[in-house]
């Protein structure tokens, strides 16, 4: 089929026969039958007329349209049938056929739409059918053939080729197609580049042949033969494997394992292309080679080893392997794993050895079971062996099947170890018996290797606790200030240990109980490495804390003595003065040298004093006396002199010391105080009387007002005549009773006011207590105080001034009542105020009075100060009462002091001696 687009003229039936028709007609007889039988669509096209002048019947079969329909449809219809993309190719160009020689063919391919709507590919061939007189082409013969199936098949093939390439690129192996005729790879996947480092193109476009260029010389022939000849007789699908070496891009030889199959054949059935899949097996190949080498080596080693090695199957009880050493050791054909082997084993160890089997069964995968046993050596002697067994394979339930064992002769080692243990044991015993702490420090391990038991006694730690790493130990127990110096030795600076001698240092170490102990450490090198550097340090430690403290104390003592306000001197046993402190020189004007000069002028003591002193000292006693000493200037100084012996540890007198206190000032103060006290005692008494007078006046008012009322009542009754004589009499008796009561109060007052000199007479202390209680009766009632008296029966009567002692007692009782009033015990709230007075005889010649109150009490630190003059805890007190009271009692040879009660309040104690001779005969007013 064809179309004409140059002028669009169609066949005109009305025109006369053209020259083309004439040509056609001339050949028609010949042409038509052939044309109709041809499977292609045939047509004749007239170039001068530019129209198709003939077309065979095939068109209907090929396109579904009849010849008549095409002719009727005209040029436009024909054009519409062509695929738009193909129209330019279909169009005839002017002069297109001019160059077309006879026998030459013009080919085109285009798509035409079938009547059913589908596109059909056509292959069109045109050639010159006839020429005009000038030889120009006149008629063109065309043939169009339906090639749709062919085109689709080709496109499917291309798609599957792409798929193959993609698949091949994804597999890890090198995939290639080798063309035998071209001697190159027509396809290679990307893996080539990854594995060997060559770009794909290098294998595909190789003019010299891949094998010759890349394959190892030794492998070339084999490979070439295998790919060419080897596959020749092989059917499709059969795989031929080869290994060969190939040089990679870096020039190294790689082992490739390849599988070849026939990929394409020549028409004659010969092999044209081979598909190969190659893997790089270089590493595996090398490993296999190494393995076979090491196996050989291993076997040599195993047989040469000094230990017995065996591989035993426990299920079959067969030795799979036993090395040569077995025979040398046990002297018989090897049968290690057999029960028969037990004949060689020492009877005592048989059970132990059998037990190893059970332990192996229980052991973890890969666990080694060690057994020590004795067995008879080939030489006949008993030797120690160690068997180390490991299970190589196990049954599903874990029972060992194949076991590998190694038996070693440990006799010598055991002997050596035992010897070492014995030696160590001995050393430890020696070390433990030493009074010092002994240790062995391993410098390479950086920790104590050994420390004796003394450590727990000296520092309270167990030896194990001391074996922690040296740095840790240092920080845990060594004093921060000493760590640096200790660290110099352990182990930072072994150089310090280069000398041969011991290195000594002191440091503070914390005892387990938290105390710091001063330790003296002596270290020396115990062992050295081959290069002479220290390896182990042996050290001993002494606890020098006491020494240190003693030393420190000595410094403090001498400081104290140097700065003492007492004059202190020391002399040796011969009396030679060895030391005087600065105060001594100040006070006496003599230095130690002055005193050692024998000169009559230099004499501190008179002879009598010196003798007394000497006797006391030599008797080992401390001698104390107030004496007057003559100083260098000649003045006599009152001193308190204390002299004592200095003895050595054995009690032998090696010298003596003296402590002298200048008591000049104290003497003066005492004298003044004594004078003051005498004056104040009187003042106090007067003041006490004043206070008492007010109380007594109140007391006296009671009977007086009662008397007045009684009397008035009587008078009124008598005046009104209402008085019944009996009734009046009773009241008058009441009057006289009240009057007597008043008289009694007056009598007591008189007694108190009477001023007398100190007069000693036997005093009934109990009646004194009663009198005083009577005197304070109103205070007692007012304060709602419970008074309790515990008076000893048949109490001896001390010789004393009754009035003065009563005054003391009154003072104490009133203080007690006031203290209870102060703390508010007098009224309602809190426990009831209690005053208890006790008398008792103590140890034969002393009687004691105790006045105990439940009042506010005195603070403990004031218990003694309250006796000082002018010290008072009361707001309006003079602060003299207790001071005077004490001086009165002391004047009687007794004592007065206060103690703090456990619950509340204070107890005052008064003692009075029963003896007749008091030390001081003084009158205290």
């Amino acid at each position, binding site marked *: 089929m064809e179309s004409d687009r140059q002028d669009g003229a169609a066949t005109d039936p009305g025109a006369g026969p053209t020259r083309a028709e004439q040509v056609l007609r001339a050949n028609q007889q010949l042409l038509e039958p052939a044309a109709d039988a041809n499977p292609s669509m045939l047509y004749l096209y007239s170039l001068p007329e530019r129209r198709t002048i003939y077309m065979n019947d095939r068109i209907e079969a090929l396109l579904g349209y009849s010849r008549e329909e095409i002719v009727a449809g005209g040029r436009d219809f024909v054009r519409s049938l062509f695929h738009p993309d193909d129209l330019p190719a279909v169009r005839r160009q002017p002069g297109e056929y001019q160059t077309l020689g006879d026998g030459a063919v013009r080919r085109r391919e285009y798509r035409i739409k079938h009547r059913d709507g589908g596109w059909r590919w056509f292959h069109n061939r045109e050639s010159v059918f006839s020429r005009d007189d000038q030889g120009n082409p006149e008629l063109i013969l065309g043939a169009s053939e339906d090639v749709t199936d062919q085109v689709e098949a080709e496109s499917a093939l291309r798609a599957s080729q792409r798929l193959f390439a993609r698949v091949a690129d994804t597999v890890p192996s090198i995939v290639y197609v080798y063309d035998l005729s071209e001697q190159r790879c027509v396809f290679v996947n990307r893996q080539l580049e990854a594995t060997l480092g060559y770009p794909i193109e290098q294998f595909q476009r190789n003019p010299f042949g891949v094998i010759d260029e890349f394959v190892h010389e030794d492998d070339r022939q084999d490979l070439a033969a295998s790919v060419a000849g080897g596959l020749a007789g092989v059917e499709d699908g059969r795989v031929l494997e080869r290994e060969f070496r190939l040089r990679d891009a870096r020039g190294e030889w790689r082992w490739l394992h390849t599988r070849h199959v026939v990929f394409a054949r020549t028409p004659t059935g010969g092999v044209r292309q081979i598909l190969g899949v190659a893997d790089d097996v270089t590493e595996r190949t090398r490993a296999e080679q190494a393995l076979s080498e090491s196996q050989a080596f291993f076997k040599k080693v195993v047989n040469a080893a000094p230990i017995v090695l065996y591989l035993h199957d426990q299920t079959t009880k067969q030795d799979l392997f036993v090395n040569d050493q077995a025979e040398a050791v046990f002297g018989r054909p090897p049968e290690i794993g057999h029960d028969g082997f037990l004949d060689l084993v020492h009877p005592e160890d048989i059970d132990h050895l059998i037990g190893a089997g059970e332990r192996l069964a229980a052991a973890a995968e890969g666990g080694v079971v060690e057994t020590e046993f004795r067995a008879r050596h080939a030489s006949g002697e008993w030797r120690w062996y160690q068997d180390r067994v490991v299970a190589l394979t196990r049954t599903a339930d874990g029972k060992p099947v194949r076991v590998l064992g190694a038996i070693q002769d440990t006799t010598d080692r055991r002997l050596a170890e035992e010897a070492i243990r014995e030696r160590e044991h001995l050393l430890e015993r020696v070390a433990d018996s030493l009074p010092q702490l002994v240790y062995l420090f391993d410098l390479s391990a950086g920790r104590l290797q050994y420390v004796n038991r003394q450590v727990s006694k000296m520092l309270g730690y167990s030896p194990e606790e001391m074996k922690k790493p040296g740095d840790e130990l240092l920080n845990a127990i060594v004093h921060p200030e000493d760590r640096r110096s200790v660290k110099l030795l352990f182990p930072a600076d072994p150089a310090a240990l280069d000398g041969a001698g011991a290195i000594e240092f002191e440091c503070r170490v914390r005892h387990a109980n938290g105390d710091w102990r001063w330790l003296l450490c002596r270290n020396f090198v115990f062992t050295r490495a081959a290069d002479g550097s220290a390896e182990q340090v042996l050290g001993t430690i002494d606890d020098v804390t006491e020494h240190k403290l003693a030393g420190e104390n000595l410094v403090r003592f001498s400081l104290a003595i140097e700065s003492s306000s007492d004059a202190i001197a020391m002399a040796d046993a011969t009396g030679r003065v060895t030391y005087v402190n600065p105060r001594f020189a100040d006070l006496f004007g003599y230095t130690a040298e002055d005193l050692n000069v024998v000169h009559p002028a230099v004499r501190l003591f008179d002879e009598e004093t010196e003798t007394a002193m000497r006797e006391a000292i030599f008797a080992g006693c401390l001698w104390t006396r107030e004496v007057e000493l003559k100083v260098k200037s000649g003045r006599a100084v009152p001193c308190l002199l204390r002299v004592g012996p200095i003895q050595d540890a054995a009690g032998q007198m090696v010298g003596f010391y003296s402590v002298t206190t200048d008591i000049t000032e104290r003497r003066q103060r005492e004298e003044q105080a004594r004078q003051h006290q005498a004056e104040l005692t009187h003042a106090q008494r007067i003041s006490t009387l004043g206070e008492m007078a007010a109380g007594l006046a*109140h007391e006296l*008012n009671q009977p*007086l*007002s009662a008397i007045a*009322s009684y009397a*008035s*009542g009587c008078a*009124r009754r008598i005046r009104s005549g209402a008085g019944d004589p009996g009734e009046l009499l009773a009241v008058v008796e009441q009057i006289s009773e009240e009057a007597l009561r008043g008289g009694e109060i007056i009598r007591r007052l008189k007694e108190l006011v009477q001023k007398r000199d100190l007069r000693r007479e036997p005093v009934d202390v109990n009646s004194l207590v009663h009198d005083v209680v009577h005197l304070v009766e109103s205070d007692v009632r*007012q304060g709602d105080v419970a008074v309790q008296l515990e008076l000893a029966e048949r109490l001896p009567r001390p010789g004393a001034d009754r009035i003065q002692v009563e005054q003391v007692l009154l003072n104490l009782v009133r203080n007690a009542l006031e203290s209870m009033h102060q703390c508010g015990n007098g009224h309602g709230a809190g426990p009831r105020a209690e005053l208890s007075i006790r008398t008792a005889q103590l140890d034969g010649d002393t009687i004691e009075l105790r006045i105990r109150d439940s009042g506010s009490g005195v603070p403990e630190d004031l218990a003694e100060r309250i006796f000082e003059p002018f010290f008072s805890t009361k707001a309006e007190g003079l602060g003299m009462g207790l001071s005077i009271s004490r001086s009165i009692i002391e004047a009687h040879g007794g004592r007065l002091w206060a103690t703090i009660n456990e619950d509340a309040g204070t107890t005052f104690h008064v003692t009075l001696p029963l003896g007749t001779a008091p030390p001081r005969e003084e009158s205290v007013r």
Partner: protein
Amino acid sequence: MKQLEPVVCVVDDDWGVRNSLRWLVESEGLAVNTFASAEAFLDACDPAQPGCLVLDVKMPGMSGLELQRELRQRRITIPVIIISGHADVQVAVRAFKTGAVDLLEKPFSDDDLLDRIRLALEKDREIRAAAAERAAAAARIALLTRREKQVLGLVVAGSSNKEIANKLALSLKTVEVHRSRVMEKMQVGSLAELVRLVVHSEENLETQP
């Protein structure tokens, strides 16, 4: 209301003083009760009993002054005569501050004491009468309605009837009726009487509607 005989109560811890005082006071024909302590007196004290109290200042336990305080707290209005052994200014001031009528220093003359007792009993009577009147007035006021109390309040405050009517929004007549009823209930005949009664009652009457 039945009039009880007054009783002189003597509180002193000293038996002689206590007993002699009884003897003296009884000579005047007065009833005497003696107590050894303030606590004993408080235990036996009957607020309805007329009388007076002779009290020693200084006693163990509760003192005289403390007893006075306690009486005030209990609203017992019994007149108190303090007797003291040595009366100082301080004690006197405190005694009078807590409502004592008199203070005597021991020993005292019989006339002094008896005069003071008589005065104290007189004062006690007056106090009790005033209290009785107050109670009666309060009782009468309690009988009034709320409106009557309002009227009363305004009357006492000095309002005229007209003013009251205006203030309470009542008619003059109604006010007059209320007023006469108030006079009737309060049992008084004159405005002056009414005012006195209300003032004595110490009632607080509302004057606002």
